């Protein structure tokens, strides 16, 4: 599963890595590029399908909160 994420705070990556491990998944590649006030991250995740689905949903929640905190 590849996700492209936009975040204001690159330290969110720490949460993403931790959450990935907690849900029994892993990442095989991770790249981050700064762009104006944002960071664009592209991450390839591997893991059981159910866990990847849960990871996807939880990352959406995490990014929503992060976006709101940056408003």
């Amino acid at each position, binding site marked *: 599963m590849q996700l492209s994420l936009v975040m204001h*705070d690159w*330290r969110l990556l*720490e*949460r993403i890595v*931790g*959450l990935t491990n*907690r849900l029994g998944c892993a990442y095989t590649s991770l790249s981050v590029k700064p762009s104006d006030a944002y960071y664009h991250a592209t991450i390839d995740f591997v893991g059981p399908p159910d866990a990847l*689905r*849960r990871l996807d*949903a*939880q990352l*959406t*929640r995490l990014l929503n*909160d*992060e976006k*709101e*905190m*940056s*408003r």
Partner: protein
Amino acid sequence: MSQLAESTGAQLVLDILADEGVEVVFGYPGGAIMPLYDAMFSHPIEHILTRHEAAAAFAAGGYARSSGRVGVCMATSGPGATNLVTGILDAQMDSIPMVAITGQVRSELMGTDGFQEADVTSIMGPVTKRAVCVRRVEDLERILRAAFRVARGPRPGPVLVDIPNDILKAKCPKMDHFAPHPVPIASERPHDVAIDAAIQLLRGAERPVAIVGGGARSANAVHIFREFVAMFDLPYAATINGLGCAAPGDPNFLGMLGMHGWKAANISVNNADVIFALGMRFDDRVTGKPDKFARNAKIVHADIDASEFNKIIPVEIALRGDLRATLGSLVRRAAQSQPPRFTSWAAEARALGGPLPADRAPAGAMSATSVLDAFFAVAPPDVIVATDVGQHQMWAAQRQRAIHPRNFVTSAGLGSMGFGLPAAIGAQMANADRTVVAICGDGGFQMSLPEMATLRRYDIGVKILLIDNQRLGMVRQWQELFYDKRYSHTDLSDNPDFAAIAMGYRIPAQSISDEADLPAALATFLATPGPAMLHCACYAAENVWPLIPPGATVHDAMNGSASEPEPAIA
């Protein structure tokens, strides 16, 4: 905002808290956060000094759980901040709105292993919705405002704001009025197509059951939930966080669901063909073994958080949105044609019930369940009960008669011992005119026992009902049932004289060990002005029944036959 004069970061924090409607904060001072406490010296916001930072976080949680308002706690850097962790995670697990503010060492000391330095935002990241360190005083207002917005929802939870000492001291413009608040996050509601599909499923059902959880509390959806179940004569159960959602005396309420739930609730849910899961998240204490949970049921799951759908249990229809709006849509759309009524099934479901199995106690010993039965029989209808964690929590949850979910305050998801007394302090601060009772066991009470000093200092009228079975009772019960009666480190038979300790804090206390003394003792206890304690020395080997063993199903429920009394306590 217009600029009048100079202020400081610390003053700004307090002004923003006040503008956000905060009337009371719970905390403990220390070096890094001293500028904030200095500003508080002459600020109208009330501060409750707990005797441990952990209690400050639990108290903020109790305040928020019982009121719906954001609970605020604060502590200094390093150990002050780390002591907040459990209470913050507790709020995260039960979706409780909280803002925690921690002082941090000066900016130039961050990363140097300075005195009382800790990487607080990294520690707090996994236990909060967001944990942010303020690096410039210019960002302070924006971050604090955002912290309150995110804490409030749509799914509430805790947010931590870490503020270095120099930012608290930094000069900034004093504001005579604040920037307009950003538009709150709009409440969402599911699409009518999904609503209609859910109603269609209900129309075709023969044995539908609703399960209500803490989402009804968070979304202020109690009234519309009652309207929803009444509309269909629908039998329903509640998770522990959903207790109090039932209309008082509603016969269709089947009781608490789960490991220690009522038989009617567990069997009806297990046999249901359609389940409306409303603001609940299928915790393992509710489902038991997930692949055997309600295997014949089609599940409609309503929740504000899409990440909850299909997390544990596959669902047929997901209704994402604010629960009050969702239930409103269900009621409105269902009313457009004759709503189905499930009167005979509801009667059948109710008939599955019966009295709770109970061990009680041998002659001469006092039963904890007798104490709780007697307490709930005489407690005021609008009493707010805050429990600690363990057997007494489950006995109380089985017996409570809360008329609203904000009246039953308990650490459900995290199960944090030490929660009960400080949470009751928070609840009392939010509900000054109500009777608030902390029901504690002897284990958990000793984790926050010094908070009796907090009760006394502020004359907070919390009543402490102490169920003392001289054991870490829930662990003892599991040792009896699942660990071959090897009672490893659960014996507390050398407990102190709790009533004497309470009186040492100048809190009136009674101690009883005979059930015959209960009525008079409870009457005195509840009538005592200000804080009071009723210490009940109870039988040690009483167990919580029913019990569905972990990972098992409702068919494996144990009802007490396996329980044998252990030797009498010393």
